């Protein structure tokens, strides 16, 4: 499968490459330079152009888009209802961009559209990395904290738990991130169970184009 990534940093992309290979059970063919957004809402701004570019100018089959939820509303089962759209949920917003952008695409490079794969890390990718290691970290724990008005941890705390500093160098960040990803590469079930924002990515990736 020919796969392109749109992510917020080289470290995120390195993790996603490993996870995508693990889901597919074989190495994906990856576009050389990943697409990059400068955080939210820049992901939303560049996504339509990336989708159009891939559809018309390349033979890439799948675009994997990930972002952090930060403190935005988390995508829940209720959002999956037909016609439902939560205007502040990042999963709902990214899916809507895919839908609207590729609505009237003609067939190009032998396919009707590029496969949509969206994952939202709640509240940040570091939570995925800590899954299965720190038992207090899960999407459910974060949602409960949001409901109680008392988040169980901050983004900065999650980062510190992994990198042991608030300011990791990029190579250190990638090294630590890949070390934690190794656990998931061997067995994705815990991540799939504890993080529906990752399970959605898995489901998208396995779906027919």
């Amino acid at each position, binding site marked *: 499968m020919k796969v392109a990534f749109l992510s917020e*940093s080289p470290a995120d992309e390195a993790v996603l490459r490993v996870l995508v290979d693990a889901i597919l059970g074989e190495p994906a063919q990856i576009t050389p330079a990943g697409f*990059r957004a*400068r*955080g*939210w*809402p*820049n992901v939303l701004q560049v996504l339509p152009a990336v989708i159009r570019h891939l559809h018309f100018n390349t033979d890439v089959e799948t675009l994997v888009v990930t972002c952090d939820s*930060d*403190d*935005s509303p988390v995508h829940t089962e209720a959002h999956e209802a037909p016609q439902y759209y939560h205007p502040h949920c990042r999963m709902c917003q990214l899916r809507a961009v895919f839908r609207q952008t590729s609505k009237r695409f003609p067939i190009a490079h032998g396919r009707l559209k590029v496969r949509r794969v969206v994952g939202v890390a709640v509240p940040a990718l570091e939570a995925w990395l800590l899954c299965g290691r720190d038992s207090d970290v899960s999407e459910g724990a974060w949602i409960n904290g949001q409901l109680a008005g008392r988040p169980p941890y901050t*983004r*900065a705390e999650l*980062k510190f738990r992994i990198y042991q*500093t*608030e*300011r*990791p*160098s*990029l*190579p*250190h960040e990638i090294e630590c991130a890949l070390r934690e990803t190794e656990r998931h590469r061997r067995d994705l079930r815990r991540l799939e169970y504890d993080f529906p924002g990752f399970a959605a990515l898995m489901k998208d990736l396995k779906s027919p184009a």
Partner: protein
Amino acid sequence: MNRVQGVDVIDTVVFHNFKALRNTSLRLSLFNLVIGPNGSGKTSLIQALQQLRTLSQFPLGDAAMQSRSGGPEIAFTFTAPYSGIVARLGCTSDVLCDFLHVDCLDTASWLEVKCRLATLRTYVLDHDAMAQSSVRADSAVLESNGGNLAAVLAARQHEAPLAFARMEAELLRLLPEFTGIVIEDDSGGRVRFSLGIDGAGEPVRAENLSQGALYLLGLLVLSFDPTPPAVVCIEEIDRGVHPRMLREVRDVLYRLSYPESFGEKREPVQVITTTHSPYMLDQFRDHPDEVVITQKLGHEARFERLSDRLDLPELLREGTLGDMWFSGVLGGVPEQQ
């Protein structure tokens, strides 16, 4: 604010009637990225620090300072254990501050501050100067424009080979098209450098390197210095660098201020730096306490810390820091004529 007791040097700078800085103060952190329009005081801040360094190295003046009250003045305070000291730069005009008065009960403390200030360095790197060969002996510290880069590289390789090797490895990671730093004798006791490339190709001589590669090498020389200055000021850190590489440039500078995070075992360096790049500002989303915005209103300018913006979390939901700066929401933009 990221403040580790006793590691940064300068605590606050208070400007009074100095150029556009009529009446404003700035509390410095360990790391400071200063953004704002031209003529808003970024360079004035750095010049004031440079002048503090110069004048602090002379014997202290007397009470003559008092007679100048009302004129331009720049006052500095220092971090603990030197928090009792106030150093005032007196200025005869907007452009000339030529007198330093120090209020200090304890001379020994001032001598310690003076020692640390003696190492303060300010940089406006110049790629043309950096590419020149330089006198081998002229290698004590990197000059303000980076002009003696070749000599500093040669001395570092000779005197601190491990630090040199780590710096070289970092350069090659950042610029993987190169294979090493080649230092050669030039005529007349001078030394020059090139960067090696893969295969049978000739090394690329300094004068043929890109501006970005030269600036990056200059920053690496500073950040891998085994005995760096206590305070480093660097202007325009984003020059010549691809936007996707700005994270790496930020990290090169973070190495100075947060050595522990980078596996370095030395004192942190206080860094004051400037940029005009919104993409560089984006790199500070998680650390708004490190960003200072100079606001210019008419003929008056003042400093603000980005972390003092109470609506910052809402702003970041709607755009990146760089977008918000460019839009004018954060201020720090040129005035309309």
